[in-house]
């Protein structure tokens, strides 16, 4: 019967496809990786910066490696839900995760109830980009530079509010660092996400905001961007100084985004993904797309990345204790 022939043919084909895996053992994995679609989990809602970065990367990896790389959004608990899902997934290289300084260096210091350890439960694969954070002021505050802001804050201690996208975000930590470094007292006004915060900033209900997303408002002149908290200036705002340039060289805030997977991914698969990612990040088209998303490409291999996660988690713990922040 023709149906039987078809079934037999399918069985033979399946066994033939499986044989490299069965015969090869460990090292053959890298040669056959990827042999099925891979999920890149983004622990945030679609449409955000991390989501955009993941999609650009997924497109490039799909083209390079010939298998679909699909973005899966699993948002919740500030990135903890998606991270937890990946931490408990199979470590075969087919479930990856976009991690950020926020989810893996800051969150462990803010939320003591995390169901995973951000260092032990993950395999770092590569650092992708650096995010930019800006300090912006509404025109009604009448400050155009950081020294002016510090003077205004000293004149009215504890009354000037700075909006952020939430507790434990870069903006929050930048604000705390600023207060420690300049010896001033501001008032933190947290919002649920950057959208509502930017709305109030644009309307002037809150005088300051520290976040990355305010760059467009600054470019259009609706607000004044006083400085960026990164090590270099942002290319679209060539006149906006860095915090180091206005007299705070110790003020560096690392807000990176990288690729990781569950702990225990075989080393050769890590190398394969890392190499493909490096090629993707070196592509000028990808670099331009990243710039539109408000980040700058900065590729680091998995060893350097692993060290960075460890040192940043300790650095943020240090800020928490120095600023006397408590999250419960």
């Amino acid at each position, binding site marked *: 019967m023709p149906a039987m022939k078809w079934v037999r043919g399918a069985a033979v084909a399946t066994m033939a496809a499986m044989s490299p895996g069965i015969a090869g053992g460990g090292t053959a994995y890298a040669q056959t990786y990827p042999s099925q679609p891979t999920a890149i989990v983004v622990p945030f*809602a*679609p*449409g*955000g910066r991390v*989501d*955009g970065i993941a*999609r*650009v990367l*997924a*497109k490039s990896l799909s083209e390079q490696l010939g298998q679909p790389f*699909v*973005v899966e*959004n*699993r948002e*919740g*608990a*500030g990135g*903890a*839900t998606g991270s*937890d*899902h990946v931490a408990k997934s199979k470590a075969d290289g087919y479930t990856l995760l976009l991690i950020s300084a926020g989810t893996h260096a800051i969150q462990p210091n*803010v*939320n003591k*109830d*995390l*169901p995973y350890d951000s260092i032990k439960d993950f395999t770092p694969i590569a650092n992708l980009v650096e995010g930019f954070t800006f300090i912006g002021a509404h025109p009604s505050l009448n400050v155009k530079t950081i020294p002016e802001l510090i003077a205004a804050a000293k004149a009215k201690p504890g*009354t000037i*509010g700075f909006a952020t996208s*939430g*507790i*434990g975000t870069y903006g929050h930590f930048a604000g705390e660092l600023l207060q420690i470094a300049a010896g001033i007292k501001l*008032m933190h*006004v*947290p*919002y*649920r996400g950057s*959208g*509502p915060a*930017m*709305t*109030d900033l*644009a*309307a*002037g*209900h*809150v005088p300051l905001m520290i976040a990355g997303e305010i760059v*467009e*408002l600054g*470019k*259009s002149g*609706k607000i004044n961007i006083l400085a960026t908290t990164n090590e270099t200036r942002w290319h679209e705002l060539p006149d906006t100084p860095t915090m180091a340039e206005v007299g705070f060289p110790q003020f560096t805030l690392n807000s990176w985004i990288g690729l990781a997977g569950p702990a225990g991914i075989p080393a050769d698969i890590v190398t394969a993904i890392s190499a493909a990612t490096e090629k993707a990040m070196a592509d000028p088209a990808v670099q*331009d*797309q990243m710039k*539109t*998303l*408000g980040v700058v490409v900065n590729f680091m291999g998995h060893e350097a990345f692993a060290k960075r996660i460890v040192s940043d988690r300790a650095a943020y713990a240090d800020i928490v204790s120095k600023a006397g922040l408590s*999250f*419960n």
Partner: protein
Amino acid sequence: MDFLSNLQLGFSVAVSLQNLFYCFVGTLVGTLIGVLPGIGPLATMAMLLPMTYYLPTESAIIMLAGIYYGALYGSSTTAILMKVPGESSSVVTCLDGYSMAKQGRAGTALATAALASFFAGTVVTVLIAVASPILTRAAQSFGPAEYFSLMVLGLIAALVFTQGAPLKALAMVFLGLMLGCVGADVNTGANRFTFGVPELRDGLDFVAVSMGLFGLTEVILNLQRRGSDQTTTLPISTLWLTRADFRAAWPAALRGTGVGALLGILPGGGAMLGSFASYAIERKIAPPAANFGNGAIAGVAGPEAANNAGAQASFIPMLSLGIPSNAVMAMLAGAMLLHGIAPSPQLATAKPDLFWGLIASMWIGNAMLLLINLPLVGLWVKLLRVPYDILFPLILLCCCIGMYSVGYSFTDIVTLAGFTLMGVFFTRLDFPMAPLMLAFILGPMMEENLRRAMLLAQGDATQFIVRPVSAGLLAACVVCAVLLAIPSFRKARETATDG
């Protein structure tokens, strides 16, 4: 005139064969997604996003936007047929819409919803084209203090929904407020009432609560009512509106559009507030003959117009300031970013093709949705003729799958079951569910805005009365409260003087 030439540019972009096709695809997919409980426009847009990489930006945004307002048209279908609100703004449609379905007027309700939504969509599209900068500036005058007063007014209006004892509605309002407290606190990051369950850090899921309290509760109550007779169906339905229906519906749609557009430009919860407000207004001004709560057509026309007006108006902050006002707008902003366009205050001047093309396609999308949905009314109505013992497991299955598809979380299913039990318990005791839903949604927003207003004003509580808009809203609260109390005062006085 500048405005006419802009619209001409917009239509020339939107009416290209390619863009018309993608508009149709988006609205069709959106409608189907809206009908399925649980899965919403956001997840669908994320799934279709990779498909848009290879499209020109205008086509991509037109299609994604079509999914959004298509989902609203579709979600009123489940609200009317199964009392399952597809989106938060369809909760009020569940009330009178489902009652109309039980009376055999499901077709009328569906047609009314589609027509009212189309009317609202047309009006707001014109509004966006003409008055976007003015509306934006008006919206910016709403600070945390004004939002707080608006929420208080909304909660007092929740008592207007009472069909029985006001005290029971008040109890439900407080229960809703308590349930809304679950989650992470915005000002301190502390976990409130999460009992160590990490999924509860974001609060109880709206989909679980609404499907449990409305849709699945109704399934269980129906089964209890029918007893042994499982094979009867809902009454056979009319398909269109009578002249009396039209006369009752169109003023409601007009008012709903106004309320929805006004509240929709306020970022954060605009579409939903508009539909609740419209229902409260219609209920207050309806003659007793309209039988509100038991199938008044104004109770469908007004809120449906309001929620579509609100949804389209929520495009305004993103188009004029580059700030997304809800998760769907953030998704659209993300799609624009992937195409190399950063949403900014200068979008209208920097990319007029995209800006005006999107506005023109909003109207075209609404027209397409009307053409898609009106013929489908007959199809949906046929679904009601399926025997209930086959229909209800399908409803149950769709709800569970829809719930699981939101977050792949078993906790959500447990929450769904818990709220179903709660809904059955309270509904059997004649407690109204709508005030609970409203308080559940508005309560957290009210608290957040109160604390933020106090923070920004350095603890000055007089700001709520000194700021004009806030003072006006609070005065309206007082008036509402008095109006609610007067009938009971009069009754008490009458019984006292009668001896």
